[in-house]
């Protein structure tokens, strides 16, 4: 009986597990909570709280450089996520719906950006782009971001496609729908939650990227994380905390949205 009792064997019921887990979570999130708390500091210090205010948030919104970098980031993330979603969709359709030879190898190529250390990708991109004369700037950023966004967009799209009944496309063919209309009227609408979820994940990964962006961004194309880093070199003020907190908020919202979408309607 005890062997069959799953509750007794559940790891959550082992002594000390709960406490350890709570500590781990606290340890992971404490720095971020600290950062958020000090973003409301009324004083200039980042280690002493002088009352609460939105002072530094006002400073962030008044800062044109931050605004410009944020715009760059969002623009880059929208373009890279969109391109990555299109490519990931094509890849997923081929991988899930067609007979792909060397499936494992294809899958590895798709997910390569997840396995290569980001600093290596960054340096390689930098060298390659200058070798072919592309140079630094927004164009290079778009190419690099699209590349590492593809695996993130791919996962939810492929998952959705796998759980989708391939018989529906067969039924559409039986009912005289030609391949393009089958895709537009059946596959695409049913894939939509996966597409949106994949796009949002790609968007957030691009928005948060620092290493590759720091190598490839040119003078006019600084992204927000790169700009925050450069602010640190001029001395740390709670303004950095405020803009960082805003980024955390944006990321959290997008990730939650993505999760909600991928869970709905399956």
């Amino acid at each position, binding site marked *: 009986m005890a062997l069959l009792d799953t509750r007794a064997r559940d790891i959550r019921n082992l002594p000390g597990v709960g406490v350890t887990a709570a500590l781990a979570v606290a340890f992971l999130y404490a720095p971020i909570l600290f950062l958020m708390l000090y973003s409301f500091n009324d004083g200039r210090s980042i280690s002493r709280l002088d009352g609460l205010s939105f002072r530094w948030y006002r400073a962030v919104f008044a800062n044109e450089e931050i605004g410009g970098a944020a715009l760059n980031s969002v623009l880059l993330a929208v373009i890279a996520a969109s391109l990555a979603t299109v490519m990931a969709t094509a890849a997923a359709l081929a991988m899930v719906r067609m007979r792909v030879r060397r499936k494992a190898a294809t899958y590895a190529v798709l997910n390569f950006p997840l396995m290569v250390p980001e600093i290596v990708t960054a340096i390689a991109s930098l060298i390659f782009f200058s070798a072919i004369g592309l140079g630094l700037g927004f164009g290079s950023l778009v190419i690099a971001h699209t590349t590492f966004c593809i695996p993130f967009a791919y996962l939810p799209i492929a998952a959705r496609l796998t759980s989708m*009944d391939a*018989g*529906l496309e*067969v*039924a*559409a*063919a*039986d*009912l*005289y*729908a*030609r391949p393009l*209309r089958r895709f537009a009227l*059946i596959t695409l*609408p*049913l894939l939509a939650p996966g597409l949106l979820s994949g796009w949002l994940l790609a968007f957030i990964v691009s928005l948060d990227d620092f290493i590759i962006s720091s190598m490839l961004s040119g003078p006019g194309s600084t992204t927000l994380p790169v700009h925050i880093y450069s602010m640190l070199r001029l001395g740390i003020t709670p303004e950095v905390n405020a803009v960082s907190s805003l980024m955390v908020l944006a990321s959290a919202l997008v990730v939650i949205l993505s999760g909600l979408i991928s869970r709905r309607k399956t």
Partner: protein
Amino acid sequence: MQDHGDACRLTGLGRTYGRGASAHHALGGIDLAIRANEFFTLLGPSGCGKTTLLRLIAGFDQPTVGEIAIFGRNVAGMPPEDRPVNTVFQHYALFPHLTVAENVGFALRMLGRPRTEIAATVARMVELVGLEGMEKRRPDQLSGGQKQRVALARALAPGPKILLLDEPLSALDAKLRQRMRSELKALQRETGITFVFVTHDQDEALAMSDRIAVMQGGKVQQLGRPEEIYEAPANRFVADFIGGANLIPARMGPEGAVAEGLGTIPATGTGGAEVTLAIRPERLAILPAGGHQPGDLGPLTVAERIYMGNELSFRLEGAAVPLHVTLPRGGLRGALDFAPGDRVALRPEAGAIRLLAS
């Protein structure tokens, strides 16, 4: 080849999955001519290749060997969207993001028919399958029976010449299945569309079909009208699969087939040949062992009495294999009853015993 009497002609059709040592012959050497306007049934156990055959006719899959002609036209390489054939799928495959009306009108929309015509046809189809008032619902708001009707209406709406139905009733409960049987049959008669109906349920096949092809192991075992299939099974498989005949091993002697524990059954054949006797359980009368007449079989011992409401059946021992005898309820009132241990004899109806090559 230009025989327009046939809706669908299959010649030497085969489908093999895999290659080399792992090759699996899902279908082999199928030759069938399905006539226009007939209710044609493919009947066979799970895995015998029924769905594979439908997929080949519909164009979802290509044959490894052989030819398919639809109304005299060879359809090799023709995609499903060009064949005048529609399918009611085993699991319906309704489009979940479209309403009932949109599902039913889908094919007409694809064919580029005018809106007014689509609306009129959808209304007619919805009425035909009795789903008035549900046009705006989505498939997940329908019961199994209602889904089945939508699938039927969707496949009928474009007016196919041939309708393929892959076990469309298997997901329904017994009562609904019974009603849908009559409705489908009536629908087929009214529309004159050639139905190719797949089932593994012999009652369904016998009740609805003009002709039945009994399949097993990717091959057609017997083709014929329901009466022929039931009364004159071509081989052991068909005799057993349809109606569960008693299959008794016997050996040909000078006066007929000699079966262990039963006696001699008059028949002609090569002396010494091994044969199988097929006898339907309901075509045997059961009597007390005493009044043995010439032609009676036995004596045997009652091993089990099985009461099933509308019929009473007995399992008898003493022959090479256990025998089953079934008495319909109508004949039951006057008939004798027996208990386990009783000694009985069997009197076959005239022509009830069929001799099959082993």
